[in-house]
């Protein structure tokens, strides 16, 4: 089959093969899976393992136009329900269905990184933002009339440049440009200086700057590079993690649109530091609309001698980058899972150690860094370690992109030095009445007003960038339940405590919301959360109970207000009448015991 041949029948490109198959046939049929398996020398079940793992790959036929509505909590609060209803009415299908003529599929998907312009939707590769019932209705009607999705954005979409196309679809909402990333950035200044340095000097510079990973975990970047550089191996890889799946995070989206050269510059510098010849940009499936733009930038860089052989005329400095598109799996933002995914496997985390810097992509030492981290590194090489080190606070140097969304006047991107308090940030975004702020997305911390004096640093409130603001009208438990359902959906299923435990946590929260919880259930939540954290092997399970644990800590009254005390030690939360109601209907009689007026 020709698709397989495009990728040289390489089993490590399985995800690309299947994405192309999905694109062309709108599903991955058992027959196709057999062909792919034969071509790549795998068993059908291995192919199916990949096909069934990613939510953008489907084993039932999808419509030629697939509409994915983002159902993040922010989109819900921004009017998702009416938007969904409008699509349902015009297309004549419910969410989760495909129309009989195979023209349309309508489905929900978790956060697509457009929380600053919610509600948003993906129509095939096109992103629609700030939807209302009316715009959704007219979009659906146009699609039904045969308009191609891109024409919904602009009549002359195809005539626009890739950058214009991206920015017509999605506003970048840069509200505050800081000194490092979003201010004026001279072209290739960092790379120019890096070629004059030895790899060790580059690493030392990055180390001295105090730069830490910006994806959330905050590992020291220079140390990571040093570990990888010290491995003796025939190949080394540089991977960029552009799979920002944490609900409420959209900072990398902005960098990928506005600073792609800086990113690739940073990756090239990293390649020089660790001696890598190949790099991969792992782009989340939701950002497919940026692929054309990024491919264009890569091609331009190759043309200008900034990628490829003998970069900037330095003999032996070879490096090139390919883009690996993801397919809708949050877990692939985890380093190990991202590597698995690049290798054409289901995106399951790997057991650590060995760490990726020792044995990563295809078993070779691999540096995996976030988009923002690479951009910072490029700027550090230009301006020097001290310049960067002087910004921020002790232990958290430089600036950080914060993506702010939710109930505030000015959602968008803020580049700020580390160390601002939540109050200061709220003042800038225009919502000093906020009742709760979720820092770092669902896996971060939910804080109440009494903690708004806390600072945004690695040591106090760490964040990968997401800051979600909630007003006093929002139901904390509803938010928590949504986040738990998100983790239930995104758990890869490898560790039982995470696969099953998160379902139990979600059910327990539902019990609270229905007012059916006992005081002891609070203890149960804490105990089960502790078990999940302790027994999961990757960051997802280690942080998935955080929505519950941090709200229990910072909003304890929300929980206790929903509990019902027992009466005479008989649970008031067990309702016998509703429990026997089904049986009453089936038996067509009433209860001798619990229907008091029963007489026969």
């Amino acid at each position, binding site marked *: 089959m020709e698709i397989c041949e495009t990728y040289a029948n390489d089993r490590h490109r399985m995800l690309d093969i299947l994405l192309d198959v999905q694109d062309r046939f709108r599903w991955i049929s058992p027959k196709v899976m057999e062909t792919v398996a034969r071509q790549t020398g795998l068993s059908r079940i291995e192919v199916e393992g990949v096909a069934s793992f990613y939510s953008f790959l489907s084993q039932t036929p999808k419509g030629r136009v697939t509409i994915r509505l983002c159902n993040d909590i922010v989109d819900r609060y921004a009017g998702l329900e009416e938007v969904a209803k409008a699509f349902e009415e015009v297309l004549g299908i419910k969410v989760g269905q495909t129309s009989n003529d195979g023209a349309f599929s309508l489905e929900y998907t978790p956060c697509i990184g457009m929380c600053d312009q919610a509600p948003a939707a993906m129509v095939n590769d096109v992103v629609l933002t700030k939807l209302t019932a009316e715009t959704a209705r007219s979009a659906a009607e146009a699609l039904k009339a045969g308009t191609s999705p891109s024409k919904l954005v602009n009549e002359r979409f195809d005539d626009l440049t890739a950058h214009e196309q991206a920015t017509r679809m999605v506003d970048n909402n840069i509200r505050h440009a800081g000194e490092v990333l979003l201010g004026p950035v001279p072209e290739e200044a960092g790379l120019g200086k890096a070629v004059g340095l030895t790899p060790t000097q580059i690493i030392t510079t990055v180390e001295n700057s105090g730069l830490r990973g910006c994806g959330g975990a905050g590992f020291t970047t220079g140390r990571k590079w040093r570990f990888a550089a010290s491995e003796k191996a025939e190949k080394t890889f540089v991977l960029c993690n552009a799979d920002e799946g944490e609900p409420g995070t959209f900072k990398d989206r902005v960098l990928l649109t506005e600073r792609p050269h800086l990113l690739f510059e940073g990756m090239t510098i990293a390649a020089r530091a660790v001696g890598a010849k190949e790099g991969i940009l792992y782009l989340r499936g939701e950002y497919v609309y940026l692929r054309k733009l990024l491919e264009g930038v890569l091609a331009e860089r190759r043309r200008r001698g900034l990628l490829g052989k003998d970069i900037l005329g330095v003999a032996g400095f070879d490096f090139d980058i390919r883009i690996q598109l993801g397919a809708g799996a949050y877990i692939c933002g985890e380093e190990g899972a991202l590597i698995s995914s690049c290798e054409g496997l289901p995106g399951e985390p790997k057991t650590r150690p060995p760490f990726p810097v020792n044995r990563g992509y295809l078993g070779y030492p691999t540096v995996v860094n976030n988009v923002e981290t690479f951009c910072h590194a490029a700027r550090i090489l230009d301006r020097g370690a001290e310049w960067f080190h002087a910004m921020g606070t002790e232990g958290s140097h430089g600036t950080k992109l914060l993506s702010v969304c939710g109930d505030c006047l000015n959602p968008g991107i803020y580049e700020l030095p580390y160390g601002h308090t939540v109050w200061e940030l709220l003042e800038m975004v225009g919502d000093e009445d906020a009742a709760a702020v979720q820092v770092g997305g669902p896996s971060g911390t939910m804080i109440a007003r009494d903690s708004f004096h806390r600072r945004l640093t690695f040591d106090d409130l760490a964040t990968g960038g997401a800051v979600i603001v909630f007003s006093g009208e929002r139901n904390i438990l509803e938010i928590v339940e949504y986040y738990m359902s998100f983790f239930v959906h995104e758990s890869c299923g490898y560790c039982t405590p995470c696969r099953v435990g998160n379902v139990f946590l979600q059910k327990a929260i539902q019990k609270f919301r229905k007012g059916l919880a006992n005081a002891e259930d609070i203890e149960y939540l804490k105990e089960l959360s502790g078990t999940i954290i302790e027994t999961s092997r990757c960051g997802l399970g280690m942080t998935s109970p955080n929505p519950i644990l941090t709200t229990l800590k910072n909003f304890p009254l929300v929980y206790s207000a929903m509990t019902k005390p*027992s009466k005479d030690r*008989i649970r008031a939360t067990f309702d*016998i009448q509703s429990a*026997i109601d089904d049986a009453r209907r*089936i*038996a067509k*009689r009433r*209860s001798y015991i*619990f229907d008091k007026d029963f007489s026969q």
Partner: protein
Amino acid sequence: MTELPKARIATASLAGCFGCHMAILDIDERLIELMKLVEVDRSPLTDIKRFTKRCDIGIIEGGCCNEENVHVLHDFRRNCDILISIGQCAIMGGLPAMRNAIMHSDAPLRECLEEAYITGRYIRNTTHDIPNDPALPLLLDEVYPCSDVVEIDYQIPGCAPTGDIIFETLAKLLTGKFRGFEREMIKFD
């Protein structure tokens, strides 16, 4: 030596298999020792159907699958100072709770009954009726663990728990020395 007043014990089997009651008898000759400390009130072992007096300890086998189970459990909670769940059915719902797994159905209870009495592969039910005698208690929508219905003070795990653990726990509770289970006693693999 003055004799201490004997503790009163009551037991009941709800949605269980009576295996846990068999396990109580598995205490063997230590029963004689135990009987020096206790008197058995309402229990299938004595065939006493109603509480004659307030009891110190109530022992519950099985979870709640029907309204009568709930009624009995309420009665035990009202009449016993300490209530003990014994065995997995009482603690978690156990085997009967398998019917809780019929989830993606609009009428799970009806589906369960139909499979059990009409459509099941090995069913020979010539009348095609679901039993519905007025004397049959109504089923609950799901099988509930006892702790969902009333507060439970102690749980003795196992399916069924061994005679040893039952004896040890009761003996310690009666002498006020119970401090939780030894790991070895509740390790099943």
